[in-house]
């Protein structure tokens, strides 16, 4: 059995925030891997970029994902990327996002998928 202690993980969120629970699941997974000191990158791809939208006001009883994003750094999820083409397609400006994710164009996306030990899509 491998004695390696860390594996880099790319968590990919492909869902908008409030229609289903997948976006929340992706954030929880990224935080858990970071809490156990695994190098984690969180990527919002395609429809997932809606999770980054500013001005979210969910009703009481629903977890505020916009605010939850703000705690990612505290958990040690340092690297957060957003699919640049998907942001543009959905009219989301980087400066108005709930979290200053780094816009990733296709060459960066290819690199992210090719360089992490594990890729967990949600």
């Amino acid at each position, binding site marked *: 059995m491998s004695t390696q202690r860390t594996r880099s993980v790319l968590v*990919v969120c*492909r869902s908008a925030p409030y229609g289903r629970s997948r976006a929340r699941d992706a954030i929880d997974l990224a935080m858990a891997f970071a809490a156990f000191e695994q190098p984690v990158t969180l990527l919002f791809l395609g429809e997932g970029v809606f999770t980054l939208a500013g001005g979210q006001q969910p009703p009481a009883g629903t977890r505020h994902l916009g605010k939850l994003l703000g705690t990612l750094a505290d958990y040690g999820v340092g690297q957060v990327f957003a699919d640049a083409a998907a942001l543009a397609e959905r009219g989301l400006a980087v400066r108005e996002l709930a979290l200053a994710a780094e816009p990733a164009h296709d060459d960066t*996306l*290819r690199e*992210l*998928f090719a360089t992490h*030990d*594990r*890729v967990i899509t949600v």
Partner: protein
Amino acid sequence: MTLHILFESPFAGHALEECRRVAGAGDALLLAGDGVYALADTAADALHALRADGIALFALAEDCAARGIASAEVPGLGAVDYGGFVELTLAHERSVSWF
């Protein structure tokens, strides 16, 4: 090198499209479940583009058969069973599931 596993029909969502954007030469794509609908004639351009980018194509034979798709007649497509699915995950450093 990465094994991409597509579980979603390209007519139902954007998984195949997103997979295309992130896949690179030397990767492989396995069509499973409704992902085998990517073999429909009208989705052929996407698969041609993947092949042109150097991505090897496979499909789960039983999922094709279940859906009335003749996988053996698709040129350049490797039809596999679950044993072949396991082998593909072993032959690639990581897998990415699209659903």
